[in-house]
């Protein structure tokens, strides 16, 4: 079975500091795409960042970056200069043929 594991159910960070959310996955496919989605309380799920598995370079979007280790099947998310608006549930996911498989999520709290 293809799975996504987020080993940190909850994380907290001080405003302006850096936090890293962990994600590992298991697939026998070689061509796939990885995503981090953010689900704020009572708001829509939105894409944070995505990574193509065939690319060695780690994706970056402003304060968000990933550490993609294909051999280890690891895909962590780093949030720099954390802001109060970053507080949300974060889901790691991968897709093969458009079907997303999600992890259990990590609830991130940002302390002022």
């Amino acid at each position, binding site marked *: 079975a293809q799975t996504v594991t987020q080993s940190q159910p909850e994380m907290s960070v001080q405003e302006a500091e850096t936090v890293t959310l962990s994600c590992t996955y298991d697939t026998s496919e070689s061509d796939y795409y990885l995503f981090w989605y953010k689900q704020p309380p009572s708001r829509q799920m939105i894409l944070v960042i995505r990574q193509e598995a065939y690319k060695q370079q780690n994706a970056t979007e402003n304060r968000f970056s990933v550490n993609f280790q294909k051999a280890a099947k690891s895909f962590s998310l780093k949030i720099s200069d954390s802001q109060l608006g970053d507080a949300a549930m974060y889901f790691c996911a991968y*897709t093969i043929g*458009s079907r997303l498989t999600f*992890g259990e999520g990590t609830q991130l709290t940002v302390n002022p």
Partner: protein
Amino acid sequence: EADIYQTPRYLVIGTGKKITLECSQTMGHDKMYWYQQDPGMELHLIHYSYGVNSTEKGDLSSESTVSRIRTEHFPLTLESARPSHTSQYLCASSRSQAWETQYFGPGTRLLVL
């Protein structure tokens, strides 16, 4: 915010009732999806569609059914609601390529008494 809409946002209904959850998108996306999400838990794909008249069951078994008669519309129906159907239902859409981002609607929170 993405142009994908779900109605109703909240629904409380009695056991045995038939319900339809609406999902519409104005982005012209070919692919649409329904996910089920219990509070604080991961999303599970229950249905998806790659275009008009195309529907497939997802990874999580569901008693619901879907239809795709128009590109922009992907309703989900429960013929006879039960308390076990209580959950949040999220609709999403994307362009055709496998790497495309899925855009999510705001969700429908369903409570079956």
